[in-house]
Structures are given as C-alpha cells and as structure tokens.
C-alpha cells in the first residue's frame, strides 16, 4: 500500500495550506466567522477558481475526475485551518449522489464545479443517522412527483440553492428498497427551510416538505446503494479533515507548552504534560494511518465499508480526545474564544456527529463485518 502523496497531490495540499494561512489564519478566525455567509461566498468563489470544486466531479460532468486521495489532500488543509466552506457536502456528498443521475443533475454538477450553485443533501429523518429510515413520501401525480415530509438534518444546508432529497417511492420505513432521490430547488413551492448554525461555524437546516414538486434523480426505488456510496465518500473526506485538525491542535499545544511558564519553568518540562503530548501524537499517528488506509481502500474494488465505519468510529474518538487534551494543556486560555484550540474541539465534536457518531459507526461496523 502506498502511503505517500504524488507530486501533484503534494502541490494541491500545499496550495490549500497557503489558502488557509491567508484566508483562515487562526488569529483572524473570529473576524472570519463574523463575516457570515458573505465571506464564505467570496472564499467559495476563490476555491472554484483554483479548480478545487470541480476536482472530485467526474470528467463527463465537467469535473477533473479526482479520486479520494486527491480529496484527502484538500481536506487535510480544511481541517488544519478549520475552514468552514461546505466542500464535503457539495463536492463529495452531493456530487456523489448526483453522478450519472440525469440531465438536471449533470447540469447542476457542472455548476457546482464552477462555484455557481450549492447543493446539500437531505437524507436523514427522525433524529437518526440511518439512511434507510425514510418516510418522506413521493406521490406521483399529473404534474409530476411531489414530496411531503420532513428531513431533520441537512448538513451545510442553510445556504444551499438546491437539495437532493431521499424519499419513499415504495416499501415501508426502514426498508432499503423503495428509496429514491429527487432534486428540489430552494425556492420550490411548499418547501420550508429552517436554518441553524452549529458551534463550529457550519450552517445546517431542516427541510419541511409539503407537496413539493421534485425532479427524480437516478434509478427509482434503488437509491440506497448510491446513497451509501456517496455518504461513505463524504465520511472518508471528513476523516482527512479530522486528521488535519488533530495534527494542527497538537502542534499548537506543543508550541504552547514550550513557551508557557509556571513555577519558573516551561510547563512542557513537567513529565505529566510530556506524556499527554505523547498520547496526543500517538493518536494523530493512529488516525492518519487509519485515514490513509480507509481512503486508499476506496480506490480498490469492493471497497471495505466496514473499514470506513471502523475508521470513522476510531478517528472520532482520537480527534475528540486530542482536542480535549489540547484545551486542557492550554489551561484557561484553551477555553477562550480567541484562541483557535477550542475551535478544533468544537469541530471535532461536530465531525463526530456528521453522518453518524461513534456509536452509530460501531453498530454499522458490527453489521458490515459480520461473517
């Protein structure tokens, strides 16, 4: 197995890091967050210009056809600099769901790649993470399909222009068969978007659908596999983000314990502190190794879904533990809004929840790895 990036991937990673240093410098973070969606839109346009947005999109759909390892090279930097732009939800998740999904999907994909539209995915319901728990009803009528029901969490959905929504065209709640995907524009009649912000600067939403006209996307009744594959890709992209964030929080902590003096010495001279930093660096190593294996695994035939669930479960644990320790070792200032360490903690907590928390992933691992 190859653990190293190619020349091109290294250049990509460095370019994301430079962007992060310029546009998401830790010291300016509060100002960036205060800019809200306006600032985010400007940076999104810049990312489009750099070609990042079209990177994971298939060539046939106007993209560059980049693979999971390319996405990893991008997402590490998102994690290191805690960039809040909705890269994974648009360019990985929505793009995965829409790939080969018909004319409208293909058109939207090209526009995602160009930074012209944003698409978010409404897949889960009922305060759950399982994608087969679908009760939003798709009713065929003379004017086409209409959707009714509720999607409780749409990752990065607050500022999206379009939504990919899963709905039931056959079967009963929790059955894999009978789930279909649809495209709905934000201003569709009967659609209510309730927006929320999360503690990490991301902005999500809930969708309330009341006979909303919708355009079918991909194969009818058989969307579960497509959804699983796209969500797995999104999870894997998030793994890289988590690893970048962990490493960054660890590096900041290492710097801090070398300079912060108490009792007349740098606190990094206390063995207790040294051991904690050692544990943090072990966790970073563990997470990076696992993220690489899971990411490379995606490019192999029969990609290991159990491996992805395992990686998400374990990297969430490592990420949260590392960020908590980073805060702890900074003492009081670790809890301040001004310093970036606690922002890493907030992001790690939210990354854990995105597409299913540790417990959910462990349960999924049990199912997927059952002999």
């Amino acid at each position, binding site marked *: 197995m190859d653990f190293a990036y190619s020349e091109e991937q290294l250049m990509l990673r460095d370019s994301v890091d430079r962007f992060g240093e310029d546009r998401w410098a830790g010291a300016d973070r509060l100002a960036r967050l205060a800019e809200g969606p306006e600032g985010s839109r400007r940076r999104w346009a810049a990312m489009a210009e750099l070609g990042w947005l079209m990177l994971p999109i298939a060539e046939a759909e106007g993209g560059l056809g980049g693979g999971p390892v390319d996405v990893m090279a991008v997402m590490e930097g998102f994690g290191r600099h805690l960039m809040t732009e909705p890269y994974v939800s648009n360019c990985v998740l929505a793009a995965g769901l829409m790939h080969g999904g018909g004319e409208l999907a293909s058109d939207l994909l090209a526009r995602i790649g160009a930074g012209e539209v944003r698409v978010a995915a409404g897949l889960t319901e009922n305060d759950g993470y399982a994608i087969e728990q679908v009760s939003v009803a798709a009713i065929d009528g003379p004017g086409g399909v209409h959707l009714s029901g509720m999607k409780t969490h749409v990752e990065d959905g607050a500022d999206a222009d379009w939504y990919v929504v899963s709905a039931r065209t056959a079967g009963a709640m929790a059955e894999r068969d009978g789930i279909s995907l649809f495209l709905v524009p934000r201003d569709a009649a009967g659609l209510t978007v309730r927006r929320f912000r999360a503690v990490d600067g991301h902005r999500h939403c809930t969708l309330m659908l009341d006979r909303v006209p919708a355009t079918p996307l991909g194969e009818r009744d058989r969307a579960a596999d497509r959804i699983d594959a796209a969500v797995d890709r999104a999870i894997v992209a998030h793994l890289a983000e988590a690893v970048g964030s962990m490493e960054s929080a660890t590096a900041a902590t290492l710097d801090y314990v070398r300079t912060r003096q108490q009792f007349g010495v740098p606190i990094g001279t206390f063995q207790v502190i040294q051991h904690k930093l050692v544990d943090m660096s072990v966790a970073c190593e563990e997470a990076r190794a696992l993220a690489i294996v899971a990411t490379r695994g995606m490019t192999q035939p029969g990609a290991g879904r159990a491996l992805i669930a395992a990686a998400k479960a374990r990297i969430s644990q490592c990420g949260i533990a590392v960020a908590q320790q980073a805060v*702890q070792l900074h003492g009081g200032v670790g809890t301040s809004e001004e310093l970036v360490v606690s922002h890493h903690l907030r992001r790690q907590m939210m990354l854990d929840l995105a597409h299913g928390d540790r417990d959910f992933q462990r349960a999924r691992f049990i199912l997927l790895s059952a002999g």
Partner: protein
Amino acid sequence: MNLDLTPDDLAFREEVRAFFADGIPEDWKTTVRAGLRLPPETLVAYQRRLAARGWGAPTWPVEHGGTGWSPTRLHIFWSEASAADAPAQYHQGLELIGPIIFTYGSKAQKDFYLPRIIHADDWWCQGYSEPGAGSDLAAIRTRADRDGDHYVVNGQKMWTSYAHVADRMFALVRTSAEARRQQGISLILVDMDTLGLRVRPIHTLDEKYHTNEVFLDDVRVPLANLVGEEGQGWGYGKVLLDRERMVAAATAMFLPQTLRAVRDAARRRRMGGGTLLDQSGFRAKLAQVEIEAMALQAMVMRLMADAAAGADSGPRGSMVKLRWSELIQQATALWVEALGPAAQHFGALDDGDAPPDMPLALQGALYSRVTTIYGGSSEIQRNIIARRALGL
C-alpha cells in the same frame, strides 16, 4: 456521619422537600442540569428566598448568621435541592470569601459583609488568577502600595468570573517583595465601582458570558479593607482549601441532575421502534456513568463524615474534585450524544427555536471542559494528592 436518619432529620427532610417542591420554575431546569449558571438576577432572588427562610448560609456557623447544620443535615439539604433541580448557591461570596472573613476578618468587616453575603446584597468575585499566575498562583504581580490610609493597587487579574455583575472583589495582591514568593501576599476587598478599575469580557468556547479580565490602574483601596494581617494572605488560602472540600462535596451532589437530563433526552430520541434509552449499548454507557456518580456520592458522604468528626480529610477534597469534574464532562458528553443530529443545531437562524435542550446541553458540554482547569486543574490536584497523601 450517621446515615441512619433520626426522626428529627426525617422531619427536616420533609421540610426541605416542601420548600423545594413548588419553588423551582420549569425553565430553570435545563440550565441547571447543564451545570450552567442561571442569570445573576435569578440567583440573587433565589439566595434571598433561602435567606428569608433562614437557610442563606447552610455551611456557616450560627454565630455568623449560618444554619449551623450538621453534615447530615447539609447532606439532606443538598440531596433535596439536587433532586428538585434547584441550582447550587453562588459560591464565591458564600463559600470562598465569607468563611475567610468570619475566620480572619475584623469585627467591622464581619458586621458589614457577612449579612450582605447571606442576603445577596453583594455579589462577590474572586480576583486571584493573573495572566502569569494560574496554577502557579504565588507568581501574582498585582501590587498594592501604601499611600496614607489607602493601598494603591496596580495590575491585572484574569478569569475573574462574574466580575461584570459583581459589587466587590476579593483579591490577592503583593504588598511587599519577599524572597519567598508566598510571603508578601495580602488579601484585600475591593469595591468594583472604584475609580481605575476596568472589566473586560473574556469570551469562552460555550458562548456564554462568564468571565473577565480586570485591569487595576491606581485603584485606591482603604487599608481597612485588608483582611487579617498584611503579608499573610497566602496562608488564608488554607482555610479556603478546607472549605473547598465542602464546595466540591456540594457540587458533586448535583451531578445526578445532569444524568436525569441524559435520561430524558435519550427517552425523547426515537430509535427504530423505541427510544435511545431502550438500546442496550446506550443504556450500558449511561449505567456506567450513573454507577461512577454513585461511587462519588459515597466519597462525598465519607468526606462529610470527616467534617462531622472534625477530622482532617487529607486529599479527599482533591479526589472528589477530580472525579466530579471527569464525571460532569462524561455526563454532558453523553447528553450531546443522546441528542444526536440535533446537537448540530446550536442556534436557530430563523424564527423558531433550536431543538429541545439546545443550546444549553452543548454549552454545558463545552463549558464542562473548564472544570478540569479551574479551581486547581486536574494535573495540580494529582500533584497535591501525590505530595500530601502519597508522600511522593
């Protein structure tokens, strides 16, 4: 401590239970369970209700206006308060400076300040930490120089919680430069509206306003506001340490509140046919924290038995603080987990509300990170236990 309650104790318990039965508004509960403070004005009103009932200072001796309760009674009182989702009383006046004043203060100080603490006429803040003096408190640099019948105070305090609502601050300041850093430190009482004193907020990760920097520029404090003797301020901290075991004990007794919140959230969260609380995996995790919380209650009882017997509890106060802070972090994390995707909806951007328990549950989980840092970090508590109990 005698765990078999006497008929008197049982009657007392009924009395306390009745007091709390109708006194705790529903809208306090989520905040309290999240380990967060209610708004200061609410806490002031609550303290006044307790004071009116004669219960303003549960841990103080009768001669200073306290209840003089035995540890058994205190245990009953806190258990009932906890069960009713009542908040913990704000501790900085009541548990931190009050006892120092009644132990070391002048008669004038006792007469003036103590009743005002009990009746919540004054909100106190603690000005100990500084930018360069956190764990290493003896490194404080804020100076108080004599000028006639005043001290002139210059320096900066940091992390001064609730300085923005406080009427007074008790502060450690340097009154002379001695070879031993612990010497030459004095404890003074500063009115917050004194000229030259400025409060600036420090924003924290949970987005709730708790704490501040306090800048002191030629702040004139009457010499009469010195507590005890000049240069002996460090030693008064010892009383504090002794009291802190009670603060730790009291706080630990409120842990079941958070666990109830976890249970309620898990019961609300739908899962397949049932709820999250029906899932054996989650149930087991909750049980684990509940079991550890019970062990902590047992440690608290033992600590209070020490107090009843007038015995030195050694490092037990540190042990309780250590375990409590770890458990409140675990309990609030479990609460967030129970909320699931709803925990991603911290605040509503449109009309309408955030999901139930939000943002308080998440604020509680984030703020709980502070508990292993303030009041002696976990690393410092372990150092204390290693030194004092284990002789290492």
